[in-house]
């Protein structure tokens, strides 16, 4: 091996110095290895097993039923109407939650990006929903907040002629999205606020000196500057919200029927209520492939906007 590589180096250095870069290389790679190996074993290995299980007909409650069935599990996934519903619900929940949370987050960040009395307190109040344990938050929204008779929401809306609406039963997807928006708005707000505060004061001042109105300044300086923060928020928010499980498990159990079943919850049902390992694994592979496609698009979009800078 050394024989083939040696001619490449024009003036072959003495042997000791050939070795030291290699040792140097390991000294550099060494500290990285434990984390890398750990991540590969715990995250990649199970996925290989998911791939393998997805070719098996295997139900945990029927021992000895395990056999190789080619791609039949995948055929079942794609002809499964619940799967289609769950995929659509996942998209509705993710897009709805991320968009609304981002819009509210931008408004709240703009409100907070001014000096006023008690700013620190309001900021603290606004980030708290993100810190509440999601399981606890979902449980409370289902009961004390959205209950048809004793819930706060119906109490507040009563003067506007809203009766005893059973929100979670009648609007399961809307209820789940509302709860998620409440938890994720602080996340978006914090990112956008950091973006607003990283603006250079000089540029804003210069715009004012040049006679730009506040509105003009906002649209032509602040919005382009915020773009990268908005994209980051959307991408990170989407990564987390796509995996929503807690809110659905606690608030609706995917119901009524399958009205609010999303992909993680459906997968859970197939695996842990149906004990259908093969089917659940195939579902998992399809979800991963879908996620990769969407994530690639999202990442490409973001890289494109990065390379498009600076703005003319």
């Amino acid at each position: 091996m050394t024989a083939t590589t040696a001619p490449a180096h024009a003036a072959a250095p003495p042997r000791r110095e050939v070795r030291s870069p290699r040792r140097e290389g390991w000294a550099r790679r060494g500290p990285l290895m434990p984390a890398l190996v750990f991540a590969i074993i715990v995250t990649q290995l199970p996925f290989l097993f998911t791939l393998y299980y997805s070719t098996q007909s295997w139900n945990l409650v029927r021992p000895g039923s395990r056999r190789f069935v080619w791609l039949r599990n995948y055929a079942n996934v794609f002809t499964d109407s619940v799967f289609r519903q769950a995929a659509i619900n996942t998209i509705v929940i993710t897009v709805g939650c991320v968009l609304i949370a981002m819009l509210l987050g931008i408004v709240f960040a703009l409100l907070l990006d001014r000096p006023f009395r008690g700013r620190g307190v309001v900021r603290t109040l606004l980030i708290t929903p993100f810190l509440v344990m999601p399981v606890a938050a979902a449980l409370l929204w289902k009961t004390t907040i959205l209950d048809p008779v004793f819930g706060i929401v119906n109490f507040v809306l009563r003067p506007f002629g809203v009766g005893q609406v059973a929100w979670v039963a009648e609007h399961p997807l809307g209820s789940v999205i509302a709860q998620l928006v409440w938890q994720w708005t602080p996340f978006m707000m914090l990112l956008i606020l950091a973006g607003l505060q990283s603006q250079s004061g000089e540029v804003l001042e210069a715009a004012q000196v040049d006679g730009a109105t506040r509105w003009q300044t906002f649209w032509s300086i602040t919005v382009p500057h915020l773009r990268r923060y908005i994209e980051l928020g959307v991408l990170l928010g989407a990564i987390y919200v796509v995996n929503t499980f807690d809110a659905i498990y606690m608030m609706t159990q995917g119901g009524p029927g399958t009205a609010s079943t999303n992909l993680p919850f459906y997968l859970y049902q197939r695996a842990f209520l149906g004990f259908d390992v093969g089917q659940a694994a195939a579902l998992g592979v399809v979800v991963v492939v879908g996620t990769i496609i969407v994530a690639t698009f999202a990442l490409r979009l973001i890289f494109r906007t990065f390379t498009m800078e600076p703005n003319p």
Partner: protein
Amino acid sequence: MSTVSAAVGRGNRGRRSVLTAVTWIVGIGFFFPVLWMAITGFKQEADAYTDPPRLFFKPTLTQFATVFDRGVGPYLANSAFATVVSTLLVVLLATPAAYALSMRPVKKTQDVLFFFISTKMLPVAAVIVPLYVAAKTLSMLDNVWTLIVLYTAMNLPIAVWMMRSFFQEVPGAIVEAAQVDGASLPRTLWQVILPIIAPGLAATALICVIFSWNEFFFAVNLTAARAATVPVFLVGFITSEGQYWAQLSAAATLASLPVIVAGWIAQKQLVRGLSMGAVK
């Protein structure tokens, strides 16, 4: 002239105070569900089911006592143990890795960084089946250590990215100066770099604590009576929620309190952690 500018000034001030009022209303409105959770936890059950909702009542600690009687103790202990140990492991694994990826970039640094972040995009539901089968085969079901391993893997990418952004802020001149003075590498790391990145370590640990403490999916699927954590304890209220709102609120308050307090204290670092070090 002066009256005009005074009027404009007054108009601005009026507009400002309206905006301030709106901001306060928004803040209180968003915070209200949290406040309501805490308030309801101090009610008798009879005060929790009233129309209109009751804001003033005789507070009681009965509900919190009942939650402990129902045996929240072991759940809290499991959560604390899983959170603390996994956070320590994450810091131990991520700090050297982040150091390697920042101070002395290895070839393909980008690839490694993107590998870490891509593991975050893998839907956890997709790997739950093999994880369950593996845990069952190894007799690791209902074992806190299973959760610890998974939480470590879950938070590792965030921590690597975050710590890397802190390492990159260490001025190279300081490190060089230490080496010129004859300090060995371990000594430079320990006495020069560590104090500089200590706040970053704390922020990273905090983010790991938040995500581990609140984690539910692995906990509910891989644990039962012995190793279950606090979120799993709350599941017990789904079936009986009809009669026990005050008790449920007390339990929810108790479960959320550690992370809320930690988040309040460290809110300056929160944004950096949530953006994995991308936003300062």
